[in-house]
């Protein structure tokens, strides 16, 4: 009993010690959603800062994992107006609308970040009527991953348009003797992210909602119905699906890596993971996202997350300067598969060498540079619900033969409902 008691006292003491000292002066707290290799890489950057500039100015940067990007936003909103608010938080486009309206955000413009060194498309992705909201950091774009082994055997080229895809689907797909599909041509059900490219690229540049996809002012009207862009996409997509070689799923990684589908769309930064999952089972390659039709020349938008600031201290500014430095951007990009956020990296000889050695990664870079920088991600309220509604409508059309015009109308009405709700809340304030 005595022994147990002394063990307990020791444990208690250690608990109390580590519980204390959580709030330190001169610490930059950064909330983020990085896990695995990305988290290690980010910690390395922080260590790099702490050992050099941080040491000189007496500041320590500390990363705090807060769950998925969505969770970071939730926690930021909950901490708003309290001392719990971090100095910096990494969040994606879903946070932009809330951040834009908040009074606690220090925008990148207000913080005096030099925009001229940043990649134009990345700047556009986070620009609003309040200027550049945040510092782009984890840039990625949608790309087409395909099974090169299968494509080569079938003598197929990566599709330029959805119609091309429809044409080659029977060749890259496969059925067994009983007629069951053993390999799909494509796996995945497009949703907000994919439609950002399929709709955004149409007619050179299209938006889902007004205010340039909600970036300027409060979005009030949905455009996918009046512009005919969603309908156009669905018509082509339905033809593609009707080949019988498209699998509706939200776990396209697993299906693609298992060789059960010959292609998929995914974020460019998933490449290292995919290579690990596939190993030498087949050769994987990357290509531009297929266009909805010949007029859809806009390309893709930059996705991923940016660093939002809630403190305008010199230390935060110094940290941002460090993180945007050439070396830091290059090693972050090469270590994670993200696209560099600063223009200088793209012309850096060392990065050029890396691109040559990693042609699969180069696709995303080339596609981004070839895209219309005005094609931007959508800032919408109720992103979670809209995400699921897109998937359900596409499933209804493809699997259950729902009328395309009806689906377009239902989808547009649903988004309009969310916009109306949002506008009401933001004008009554």
């Amino acid at each position: 009993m005595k022994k147990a008691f002394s063990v307990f006292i020791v444990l208690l003491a250690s608990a109390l010690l580590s519980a204390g000292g959580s709030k330190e002066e001169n610490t930059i707290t950064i909330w983020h959603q990085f896990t695995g290799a990305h988290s290690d890489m980010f910690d390395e950057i922080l260590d790099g800062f702490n050992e050099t500039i941080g040491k000189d100015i007496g500041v320590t940067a500390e990363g705090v994992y807060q769950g998925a990007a969505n969770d970071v936003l939730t926690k930021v909103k909950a901490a708003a107006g309290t001392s719990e608010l971090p100095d910096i938080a990494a969040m994606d486009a879903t946070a932009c609308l809330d951040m834009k309206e908040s009074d606690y955000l220090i925008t990148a413009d207000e913080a005096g970040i030099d925009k001229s060194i940043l990649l134009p498309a990345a700047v556009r992705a986070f620009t609003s009527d309040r200027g550049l909201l945040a510092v782009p950091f984890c840039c990625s774009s949608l790309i087409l991953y395909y099974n090169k082994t299968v494509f080569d055997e079938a003598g197929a080229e990566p599709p330029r348009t959805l119609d091309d895809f429809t044409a080659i689907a029977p060749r890259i797909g496969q059925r067994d003797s009983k007629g069951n599909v053993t390999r799909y041509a494509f796996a995945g059900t497009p949703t907000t992210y994919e439609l950002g490219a399929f709709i955004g690229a149409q007619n050179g540049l299209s938006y889902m909602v007004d205010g340039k996809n909600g970036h300027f002012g409060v979005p009030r009207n949905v455009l996918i119905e009046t512009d005919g862009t969603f309908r156009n996409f669905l018509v082509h997509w339905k033809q593609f699906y009707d080949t019988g070689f498209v699998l509706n799923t939200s776990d396209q990684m697993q299906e693609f890596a298992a060789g059960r589908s010959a292609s998929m769309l995914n974020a460019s930064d998933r490449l290292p993971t995919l290579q690990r999952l596939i190993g030498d089972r087949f050769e994987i390659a990357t290509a531009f996202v297929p266009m909805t039709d010949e007029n859809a020349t806009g390309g893709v938008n930059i996705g991923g997350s940016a660093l939002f600031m809630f403190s305008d201290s010199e230390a935060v500014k110094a940290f941002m300067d460090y993180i945007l430095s050439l070396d830091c951007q290059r090693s972050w990009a090469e270590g994670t598969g993200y696209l560099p956020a600063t223009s200088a990296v793209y012309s850096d000889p060392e990065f050029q060498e890396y691109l040559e050695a990693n042609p699969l990664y180069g696709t995303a870079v080339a596609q981004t540079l070839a895209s219309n920088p005005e094609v931007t991600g959508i800032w919408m309220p109720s992103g979670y619900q809209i995400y699921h509604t897109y998937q359900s409508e596409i499933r209804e059309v493809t699997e259950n033969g729902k009328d395309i015009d009806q689906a377009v109308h239902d989808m547009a009405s649903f988004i309009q409902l969310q916009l109306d709700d949002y506008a009401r809340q933001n004008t009554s304030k």
Partner: protein
Amino acid sequence: MKRQNTKAYLLLLPSMILAVLFSFLPLIQSIIGSFLNVSQQGKVLGAAGLDNYISLFSDKAFINSIGHTFLFLAIFLPLNTVLILLAAILTRRKRRHIAIAEYVFLIPMAVSLSSISLIFREIFRGRVSIANRILSTDLPWLESPGCAIFVLALLGVFLDFGIDYILLLSSFRKIDRSLIEAASIDGAGSLRTLFYIELPEVKPMLSVIIFLAIKDAIMISAPVMILTAGGPFRSTETIMYYYYLEAFRSGNRGTGSSIATLMAILAGLIMATMAARRRHDRENG
């Protein structure tokens, strides 16, 4: 004997403080909060009357979550009851090798909620999952609403299996041997003995297990978070997962408080009914 008030109160103080602070006070807070308008930052904006409840019940997602919870219960409860009954019946007599079976049936107790949820997620992941391989099916387990709620129910069975099995097994083994022997002398077969002698004896324990299972089922949230995060298409959002989303994700304190109040009352009623039944069983047994 002299009264020892001070000493007794001192000894009870920690328990009382903790019980009030983390049980009674939050319950009262929830009840009061459910009739107030509270901002995301926790500021009271005024009385809301029944507004929180009205907006709660006019939210389609909440109504759906009630449906999902009861669908879950409808799959989970029979599955759970049948499986633990079978396991306990098949191992109720101590025989050679039966100890091995006992160990195996206790395994679920050693596996934590988050571990088993992660394991299930992998077993049922995608069409190339091991589940499809073993069952020779081609089902999109966690991708289709019907399958996902079934997998969730199966996970629920796993979470409760160990403890339920122990309770039921020890209840079987506590039956007076002479009752069973007398029956077999009378020439009753083992099935007859089971149905007419043993099952009535374990009925009180079985009803406790069922009550606890119902309570656990309507309060389910953590496995949903890890296994499906409410998906696919929000088809596995249960009441308490919806509560988590509203209270913690969206910061809707009013709605959060009204769900908490309703669920606390519901769970309290289930527990109280169970306690009343047990008392009744004991007095008559």
